[in-house]
């Protein structure tokens, strides 16, 4: 049924907001107060230090996502809001995975990192830290592909997204 699919529709919302104390909590407070989902949220200043760029991954029916973008626009510190998933865009997430790397698994882990175009950025006698960048799906499949018992820690950044081609979100 369509409605069922709608409720699980994933959206990537990108916003430019004033880089001011409290702006992040206004955004996150809006999501919790109105019961909207946040799957991930990333934020950092842009090349113009007075502005921050935020990428929020959320899900909901079309009506809910419409409300989310309207409510975000209503926040006084929010300058621009775009639903990136409405058209072509790219998204990337960074993951750092610390794995146990001993014995024959040490070589296997190196091979897996190579296959997924990851980089080993920290090495000890018994562990690797693997850096991996890609879509959420790619990171998920890497985590699925290695032996779960060998994972010591995973740290994911949440995704950053940007529209393809001439589509520019700028103030």
């Amino acid at each position, binding site marked *: 049924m369509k409605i069922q699919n709608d409720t699980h529709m994933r959206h990537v919302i990108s916003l430019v*907001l*004033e880089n001011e*104390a*409290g702006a992040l*909590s*206004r955004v996150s*407070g809006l999501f919790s*107060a109105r019961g909207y989902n946040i799957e991930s949220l990333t934020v950092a200043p842009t090349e113009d230090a007075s502005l921050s760029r935020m990428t929020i991954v959320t899900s909901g029916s079309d*009506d809910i996502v*419409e*409300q989310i973008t*309207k*409510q975000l*626009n*209503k926040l*006084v*510190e*929010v*300058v621009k809001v775009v639903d990136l998933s409405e058209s072509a865009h790219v998204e990337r997430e960074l993951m750092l995975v610390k794995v146990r790397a001993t014995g024959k698994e040490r070589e296997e882990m190196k091979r897996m990192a190579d296959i997924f175009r990851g980089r080993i950025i920290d090495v000890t006698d018994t562990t690797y830290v693997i850096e991996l960048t890609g879509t959420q799906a790619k990171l998920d499949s890497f985590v699925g592909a290695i032996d779960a018992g060998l994972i010591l820690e995973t740290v994911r950044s949440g995704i950053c997204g940007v529209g393809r081609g001439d589509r520019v979100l700028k*103030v």
Partner: protein
Amino acid sequence: MLLTGAEIVIRCLQEEKVDYLFGYPGGSVLYIYDELFKQDKVRHVLVRHEQAAIHAADGYARSTDKVGVALVTSGPGATNAVTGIATAYCDSIPLVVISGQVPSAAIGQDAFQEVDTVGITRPCVKHNFLIRDVRDIASTIKKAFYLARTGRPGPVLVDIPKDITAQKCAFEYPQTVSMRSYNPVVKGHQGQIKKALQLLLEAKRPMIYAGGGVVLGDASEKLTALVRKLGFPCTNTLMGLGGYPATDRQFVGMLGMHGNYEANMGMHYCDVLLAVGARFDDRVIGSPAHFASEPRKIIHIDIDPSSISKRVKVDVPIVGDVGEVLGEMLAMLDSVPERTDQDSLAVWWKQIDEWRRRDCLKFNQGEELIKPQYVVQKLWEVTGGDAFVTSDVGQHQMWAAQYYKFDKPRRWINSGGLGTMGFGLPAAMGVQLAHPRSQVACVTGEASIQMNIQELATCKQFRLPIKVVMLNNRYLGMVRQWQEIFHGNRYSESYMDSLPDFSRLAEAYGHVGIRVDKPGDVEGALREAFSRKSDLVFLDFQVDQTENVYPMVQGGKGLTDMILSAEDL
């Protein structure tokens, strides 16, 4: 010349032409109070509880087209203000609230009277600021007033640490504000307005549904002109009362949970609905699913895009100031030859008049017990329909809304969205200060009035001749009504025991108190009260304890599922 932060605060208020500042002093705002003391342009009204300061500023704002201003101290001063701020937020009332904060260096140290005021108020303000530099005070206060009054209005809070009010800098009040992140739309989209007008002209069963946006946008003249020109029926929400003259034939009354039969039926069965500055909230349309069960085209004018298609799908959205859009619509209507089909309109009016004949607001005033509706009806007569009426929350609020026929906007002052008991008396103080020579009545109940009854002292100090019209039924009436209907007559904690003798209590505060027990004495008591031009008169009407508010749509039910009287139960 260098000014202290406190001097700058007061200078900013003077620049904004603030005549009344409602507040309560405390440690963190002492420098500001010291500066207040040294000038006489901004008059300070000392309330007895910070909640009342905000409600009074709110009543002042609602009854004028100005921004209400309040000043409170840090910690408990700010937390006491929160209910008032949330009340204003829910009804989109423009306020600027200045709160003191502990000194900058003490923030985060769990200092005496420290709370995270900006954090606590964040979800119930349009915007708030914590000032960190004395040089930001003037520009921030300028922004606060601008944000409060433009776009969809709302309360804006400015939190100022104590040390900053003592530091010095040069003062210059900015003439203009520009914020790249805040540009409210004013003018409506021409194409959409044209489309809307086309729909209205093709309608066979039209309805105009106008809310608080019409009052706040000072658009009631334009609304009235449009409704009359089109010849359509018009209903107002609780917040919109007075937006269209209630004594006009085209007015079908308030709609919603306690709305008129003809208004609710018309709203449900119309084929084209024009919603103006209203938001289809749960107390207005009941169940959205039931409302959607009848096909109709909906045009929605609102300044806030997020109010559009929030609960009800809209066919023609128009984002803009309601006054501007209605003005455009009127001009366009004059320029086109088409008119609505008069035959269909006559059939529709015939249907509406048939609904109207149910006379859903009828009640029987007997010899023994005073009916609360009768008191409000008499209040309307005695005041010539021209008073400012504030109310608290509950049954008396609904009776005031149903039986006082407001012909002008900004006369009906109540907490519609948040439903704050204790709002009425302090709000009436703000109204009376803004309109010193007008009749101001506070319709209240014996439960609500006790939530801010300490303000009788403020009324005495500032000689506010408010008439308190208390409908005393010795119950939390609306709670009792729901318990009667939905909880098998189990009146859990809704009986008001140990009530004071209110007329003597009023006298203890230095006012006039009158207790009324007989229906025959109602009108005389009201006349007596309103003839005392310089006294606050507290009228304690002992009313029928069993009276319920009808019509009634039960929560979550459809608009047409109305209980019209006790016989329907």
